[in-house]
């Protein structure tokens, strides 16, 4: 028997040996774990969360035996890159404890783990296994999953704030429900940065039934953060729109020069590539001292960059969210954020990447890429001062993840539907899963679909004579394990030097980008200028380019919307400006633009809704500024366009940004007269009808279907070097979308695509609320003579949604008659 009284002192002794004193929050976690309580620990990074959970688990579960226990703790991390460093930290923590009791071993299991190591882990599991949500699902798909994972007493989930709001988090919720079924007294501890809704984060982590018994522990240490803005030198010529901010490069160079090590965050991978070569162009002597890091680069080059950061040999790294999380880079002194940080929590997370240890100061400097981002900078500082931080919510019952989970469990020992339903419904994500949707998922994996005869050749999983559902087909098993996960990607092409001799692998780009290149074309990738030689078997062979300029790949990542918290703070800043108060350096820098907006039009405020109309060469424009974030604007814009199209059939082009949206009509339209009816609120029931009707006319669902089809295993992702027979399976998801719509319109995944659009972009509840909010604001209409500073970025936006209820022929007719008119003028 272990002695519960002496062990906590063992952990304290461990601290004392190193001359440390445990923080009160660490002792609180140890106490809660000793009592057998689960919980959520939130604190800033570098505050000692890892030690709190690791030593707590050891104290709760180490027994007086020589042999280390087998798979007692699962440690889930959202990032593979983090696993190795966590393993090092844990080994160090357990080392000194061996003299006080049981010796614990630590292992890592992720997509990078070699098969020999996996085999060793299967024979002799470590006491603590560090893994990712995807690898955990993969382990659940083993036939002996229960024997292997049934011994787990405690699960620690690192960076829970990164998982709660997405499908990887849903996958984690399902896995936790499975582990809890095997061991009802399982301890679950989540570690999170500060969120606006901690209670809900705990509820999603522990499940609705168990959450009330869980603890929330706050890491006491408040880290000091300095936020400032790099102001443009020439305010007058600072652009109204754009996203690169390259004109700020000389100032960024000067800032980097002054600090030992800096991270330069950009919002997209293309932007990172562009900034990297612009910095190098400004300072050729920094070759080898600065580097680029993003998710599409080869593992080896990312490792090299990360090692350089740890060792302090790099002066600066231009990166994307790929370095948002994880590994502590102690030498990093300074963060520069190019463009909008999009949210308060994200800004704080990135700021925390500098001064990364208890007691040190973090410093983040915002580099605005256009004038409105100056206002954003001012707003984000205000929000931080007031402690306003975003909330994150779990996705609601996504069927694609559930379909994947059914096949996973079918492989991992099988299931009885009633038992599994109860287990699935114990998660926050699926607590309201309807019987109909559950039956649809079962039908779908067993070869059903709407009618059981729809897919006779196709059967992934089904009931045996004993009533237990299992996967019979080896091919299905293989392919399912290959595709497990909820991170979706376009067909990707490996970029490699070659072809003869085949050289270094540099990373991956989307197939659609390579498809646009001709042999001999140059492009920037991994910070190098490359010449495209040829494409073979999903490998793009390249060599160093002889030219001096090239294209930059675009990766089709979703653009993150501005958070509502930050958008609200921004309108408050604009109200200050409307009152003639320019109190912050950022507002003063934007003053000229803001005064121009006020003179040509109006400044939006929390109590007004600004609408601008304009007739241009392109057509009749309506600009509306609800400041509700990109996603919500897509929904509002589609709905308003749909309402406008009810009187006469027409086609609208829609542009959105985080501040507002534009509807553009080719036909004459008196927007001012239509507006009150277009933004009128409706009862939720009527609103749902309108939104469903507008969906068919918009292109929204088709795009969403891409991800859903991939997660549910409908579309096979192409991998470099994959087996030939899989290639015959490649079809684009938009083709699938068309075929399903025509030949199987009742398909549940199609309905999910629509539902996700309804819930994310067209969240009915939020839409109803938004329309309600619009009503409470005073409508201010301005007929513009020329494009206003707020309207300009929308007018030049090229990424557009379309909504049309015209026939194809009518649209073509207009296109051709325009061509002819243009031709007549020649």
């Amino acid at each position, binding site marked *: 028997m272990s002695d519960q009284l002496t062990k906590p002192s063992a952990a304290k002794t461990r601290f004392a040996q190193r001359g440390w004193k445990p923080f009160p929050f660490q002792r609180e976690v140890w106490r809660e774990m000793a009592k057998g309580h689960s919980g959520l620990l939130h604190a800033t990074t570098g505050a000692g969360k890892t030690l709190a959970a690791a030593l707590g688990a050891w104290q709760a579960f180490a027994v007086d035996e020589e042999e280390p226990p087998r798979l007692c703790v699962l440690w889930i991390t959202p990032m593979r890159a983090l696993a190795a460093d966590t393993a090092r930290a844990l080994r160090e923590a357990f080392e000194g404890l061996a003299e006080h009791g049981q010796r614990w071993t630590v292992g890592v299991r992720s997509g990078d783990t070699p098969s020999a190591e996996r085999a060793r882990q299967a024979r002799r599991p470590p006491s603590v296994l560090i893994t990712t949500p995807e690898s955990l699902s993969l382990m659940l798909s083993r036939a002996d999953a229960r024997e292997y994972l049934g011994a787990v007493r405690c699960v620690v989930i690192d960076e829970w704030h990164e998982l709660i709001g997405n499908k990887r988090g849903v996958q984690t919720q399902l896995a936790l429900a499975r582990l809890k079924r095997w061991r009802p007294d399982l301890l679950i501890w989540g570690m999170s940065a500060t969120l606006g809704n901690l209670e809900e984060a705990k509820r999603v982590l522990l499940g609705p039934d168990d959450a009330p018994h869980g603890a929330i522990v706050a890491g006491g240490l408040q880290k000091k953060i300095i936020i400032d803005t790099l102001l443009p030198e020439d305010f007058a010529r600072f652009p109204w729109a754009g996203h690169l901010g390259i004109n700020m490069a000389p100032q960024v160079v000067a800032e980097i020069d002054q600090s030992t090590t800096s991270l330069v965050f950009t919002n997209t991978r293309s932007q990172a590539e562009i900034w990297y070569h612009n910095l190098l162009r400004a300072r050729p002597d920094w070759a080898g001292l600065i580097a680029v890091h993003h998710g599409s680069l080869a593992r080896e080059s990312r490792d090299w960059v990360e090692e350089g950061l740890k060792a302090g040999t790099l002066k600066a790294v231009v990166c994307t969210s790929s370095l948002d999380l994880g590994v502590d880079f102690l030498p990093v002194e300074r963060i520069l954020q190019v463009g909008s940080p999009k949210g308060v929590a994200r800004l704080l997370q990135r700021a925390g990447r500098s001064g990364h240890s208890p007691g040190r100061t973090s410093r983040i400097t915002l580099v605005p890429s256009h004038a409105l981002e100056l206002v954003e900078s001012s707003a984000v500082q205000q929000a931080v001062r007031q402690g306003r931080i975003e909330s994150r919510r779990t996705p609601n019952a996504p069927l694609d993840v559930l379909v994947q989970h059914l096949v996973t469990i079918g492989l991992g020992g099988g299931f009885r539907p009633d038992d599994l339903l109860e287990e699935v419904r114990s998660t926050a994500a699926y607590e309201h899963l309807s019987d109909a949707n559950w039956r649809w998922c079962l039908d779908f994996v067993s070869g059903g679909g709407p009618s059981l005869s729809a897919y006779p050749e196709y059967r992934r999983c089904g009931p045996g004579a004993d009533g237990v559902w299992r996967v019979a087909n080896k091919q299905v098993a293989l392919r399912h394990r290959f595709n497990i996960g909820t991170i979706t990607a376009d067909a990707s092409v490996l970029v490699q030097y070659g072809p003869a001799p085949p050289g270094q692998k540099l990373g991956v780009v989307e197939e659609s980008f390579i498809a646009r290149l001709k042999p001999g074309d140059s492009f920037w990738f991994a910070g190098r200028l490359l010449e495209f030689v040829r494409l073979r078997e999903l490998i793009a062979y390249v060599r160093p380019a002889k030219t001096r300029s090239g294209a930059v790949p675009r990766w089709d990542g979703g653009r993150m919307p501005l958070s509502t918290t930050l958008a609200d703070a921004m309108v408050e800043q604009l109200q200050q400006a409307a009152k003639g108060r320019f109190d912050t350096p950022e507002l003063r820098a934007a003053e000229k633009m803001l005064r121009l907006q006020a003179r040509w039009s109006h400044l939006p405020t929390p109590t007004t809704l600004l609408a601008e109309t304009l007739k241009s060469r392109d057509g009749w424009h309506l600009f509306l500024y609800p400041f509700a974030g990109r996603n919500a604007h897509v929904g509002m814009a589609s709905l308003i366009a749909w309402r406008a199209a009810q009187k006469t059939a027409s086609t609208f082009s829609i542009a959105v940004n985080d501040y507002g949206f534009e509807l553009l009509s080719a036909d004459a339209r008196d927007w001012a007269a239509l507006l009150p009816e277009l933004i009128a609120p409706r009862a939720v029931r009527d609103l749902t009808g309108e939104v469903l009707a507008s969906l068919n006319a918009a292109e929204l669902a088709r795009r969403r279907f891409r991800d859903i089809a991939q997660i549910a295993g409908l579309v096979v992702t192409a991998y470099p070097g994959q087996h030939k027979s899989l290639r015959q399976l490649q079809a684009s998801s938009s083709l699938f979308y068309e075929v399903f719509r025509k030949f199987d319109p009742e398909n549940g995944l199609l309905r999910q695509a629509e539902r996700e659009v309804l819930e994310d972009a067209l969240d009915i509840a939020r839409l109803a609320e938004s329309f309600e909010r619009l009503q409470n604001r005073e409508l201010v209409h301005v007929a513009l003579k020329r494009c206003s500073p707020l309207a300009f970025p929308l007018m030049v936006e090229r990424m557009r949604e379309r909504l049309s209820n015209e026939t194809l022929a009518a649209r*073509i*007719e207009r*296109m051709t008659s325009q061509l002819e008119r243009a031709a007549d003028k020649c």
Partner: protein
Amino acid sequence: MLNSATSQRDGSGLMSSHEHRGLVLLPQRAVWRAETRTLFIADAHLGKAATFRALGQPTPRGTTRDNLDRLDALIKSFHPARLVFLGDLFHARQAHTPAVAAAFLNWRRRHATLRVTLVRGNHDRRAGDPPEQFKIELVDEPHDAEGIVARHHPLAFDACKGEGTIILAGHLHPCVRMNGAARDSLRLPCFLLQERQIVLPAFGAFTGGALVRGRGAKTCAIVDERWLVANQMRVE
């Protein structure tokens, strides 16, 4: 008959058919040659959905039915003596399922007197030759179809300049993007007209398309089953 494009035009700027060098381009994704009563079809990819299902991918039923129904409709309106498939008639080896075979055989029996030719394409090579009972004449490219060169893979643009026999080909599944006022934009399947070569759009119901690029190419886009627009925009 090798005159330049002529077309029947109605008031809308859309046309029901389009004549090009003595051949009629049909919005039903086919080419009609009246003098020899021949219909040309490219890239039907029969059994593609069945292939997906056989490999474990759920794909709706009805695409092969749809393909054969559309072929029936074409035959009913043109009464061709000969039908030439310009490659990729069957998608893969797995496409030859009993259901697909039965549907095809049934279709073939209904048009027993029709002469049917398949110019082998890349997919046909993998799928293997169709069984004899399908009564398909099998040839390799280039095939001389009574004075028309029938191919699966199109020739490079430079090779189809100047005078000579007309070449019909498939393989590319060409599509074109059209842009209009108020930033409207559409992607449509199209015929690709390159000097004396015509690349047909894919006929199959379950086929995607690729945006065409290339020097000197003109396109002729299909709006839907009924309409065809020949604005002959230059690509690049």
